């Protein structure tokens, strides 16, 4: 089968390798669609080498995927899973017993950027029949965003300031809307991103750098009766966004970090103290897949298909897929690859 293999920084090749075989408690999936994540870009450019080198190279990559079950390994619960079912996959095999994280398409055998992949049966979630498979590939990033807001204890009626209007920011906005946010402020860079995030549910968009950091803070206070936002989500990960977050969040509120960071920031701890700010971090799913799939199935999310801005065959993953996200970043939300 064809699979995208990571050999090293800027060295990903789509090659023919043997099909994987479903072992005990595993299922084999024919991949339908696999999305590209910002962390895949990070892997490609060699910025996440510590996580990758838990396995000998080359490794399969891709962790946001959907597909159809084609084989059940020994011991798989045939009451729950059957050949022919469409599924979304939870890529995070997270063990609380050991601090390390094993993640499909990052540090496990095989990734979603291939024709077939084998996963643990516990990592598989059935997609209701009316959810198309391309939307199925969005379940993973939607779940990351869902869990982040849950972890921030976001409640209906809360206000949220989202820093960054890239793919993560847009998904956070969509999830915040489903959670019943009373106000969603978003800061973003670039006309296309600002208009996209407005389409997907932002109450107000602050275009940086024309709107200054101080203005974002002041406007957030105005919009929240002078108290500050209940939650601030940092999807951008810079000193400037962290400073804005700490100033704009209300006393006792949560700053939720979902960003990848290029540089360690300085932290105004005394401001955190004076306002009892909680700085929380979310990477995983928190078991939210079933809830998210249910919400999608019930039509709670609108315009999910509008999030897919490019579809590329697996053979052109590097030339068209990664390139688009590197050089035309502002034009895209989700790029989906089909094997």
């Amino acid at each position, binding site marked *: 089968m064809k699979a995208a293999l990571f050999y090293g920084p800027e060295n990903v090749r789509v090659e023919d390798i043997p099909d994987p075989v479903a072992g005990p408690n595993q299922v084999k999936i024919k991949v339908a669609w696999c999305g590209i994540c910002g962390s895949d870009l990070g892997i490609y450019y060699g910025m996440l080498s510590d996580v990758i080198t838990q396995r000998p190279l080359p490794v399969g990559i891709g962790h946001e995927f959907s597909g159809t079950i084609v084989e059940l390994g020994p011991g798989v619960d045939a009451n729950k899973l059957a050949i022919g079912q469409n599924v979304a996959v939870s890529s995070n095999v997270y063990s609380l017993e*050991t601090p390390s994280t094993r993640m499909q398409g990052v540090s496990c055998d095989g990734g979603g950027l291939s024709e077939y992949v084998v996963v643990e049966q516990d990592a598989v979630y059935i997609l209701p029949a009316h959810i198309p498979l391309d939307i199925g590939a969005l379940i993973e990033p939607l779940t990351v965003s869902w869990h982040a807001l849950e972890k921030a204890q976001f409640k209906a009626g809360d206000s949220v300031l989202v820093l960054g209007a890239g793919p993560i920011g847009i998904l956070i906005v969509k999830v915040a809307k489903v959670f019943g946010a009373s106000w969603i402020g978003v800061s973003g860079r670039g006309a296309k991103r600002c208009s996209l995030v407005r389409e997907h549910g932002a109450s107000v968009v602050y275009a940086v750098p024309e709107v200054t950091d101080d203005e974002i803070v002041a406007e957030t206070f105005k919009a929240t009766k002078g108290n500050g936002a209940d939650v601030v989500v940092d999807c951008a*990960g810079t000193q400037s966004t962290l400073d804005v977050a700490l100033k704009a969040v209300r*006393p006792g509120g949560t700053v939720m970090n979902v960003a990848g960071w290029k540089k360690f*920031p*300085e*932290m*105004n701890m005394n401001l955190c103290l004076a306002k009892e700010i*909680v700085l929380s971090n979310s990477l995983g799913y928190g078991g939210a897949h079933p809830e998210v799939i249910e919400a999608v199935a019930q039509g709670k999310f609108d315009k999910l298909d509008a999030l897919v801005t490019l579809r590329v065959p697996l053979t052109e993953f590097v030339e068209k897929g990664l390139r688009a996200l590197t050089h035309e970043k502002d034009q895209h939300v989700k790029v989906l690859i089909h094997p």
Partner: protein
Amino acid sequence: MRAVRYYGPGDVRVDRISEPSAGKGQIKIKVSQCLCGSDLHLWHELLPICPTLTEPHVVTNEKLPVVMGHEFSGTIVDVGPGVDTSRLTIGSHVVIEPLLSCMQPTCPFCSQGARNLCRHATFIGIAGCGGGLSEYISVDQRLVHILPSHVPLDVGAIMEPLAVAWHTVKSSKIKPGDHALVLGAGPIGLLTLRVARAFGASWIGVSEPALKRRELASKNGADVVFDPTAQGVDVVSAVIAATGDRGADVVFDCAGSQKTLDTAFLAVKPRGHIVNAAVWAQRPTLDIDSLTYKEVSLSSILAYDRVHPEMLKAIANGKFDVEGLGSLITRRISFEEVVDKGIKALLYEKDEHVKILVSPDLEPPVAHARL
């Protein structure tokens, strides 16, 4: 009456001022003892929670000078009109919750009871409304709590920092059986150690560079005490080993330095909690990657939020043992010695002292005539 008053950075004086009377809803208290010192930062600089010589504080409406002292106990000597005398009677031993806030109906924090988050929150003994470094003080009855009968008055003065430690431990959401690491064994660290045990921590490690403070940590119940400056001591590895390779469920940073924060990030377990109770001299650099990959939450606390009643109840019914808390008092002084033997001792002989107790009744040392 005599009172120690703060005029500004470096300017603290013992003055004679008029004795307060118990106004509507107020209790007049004869102060027994007051702790010196969490207001140490004020010796160096004014803080936003203070008024200035010209600008009154919005909650107290007072300008400098203000009477100092917010950690104290005393005896009720008078009750004003409208006081609930079924709860508060003349002769009762009491402690004060010195947290002041705006109490406006438009303030969501005061309205919900989380007064420490009020944007104008401040303290008795820092922004006005009297202070514990005086002979008498009148306080709103809502801020007055009965000291459990078996607790001596000098230990009663420790109830305020104990409430800070209580709030710190509560907000960490520590569960019985948890493993905790306390960084820093100053007053707050030592009290946090005690409270964490009362909340059911099964293992508590304490890291502290000063010998005397390490000894106090052992005396106050630490399972293991680390000297992070000693050769060959690796606090992080030791914590990982002591916690079945997982890391501490909760880490309390009661020291507030780059080193302690870094240690906290590495020693906490994935999805664990770090609670910051310290005031910081500088902004640390955040190892955001460790935080992110381990999905750690980092929270901070300010003072207390509705902690006094449950804390004092736990003390009254023996669930929290105050035995030995008096060992945190390392010196007893008079008003006149507050600067030289109090504030300066805490600033410059930090490793020798934990809490210094000031008594209005203590006479200043008599100067011997030179012959």
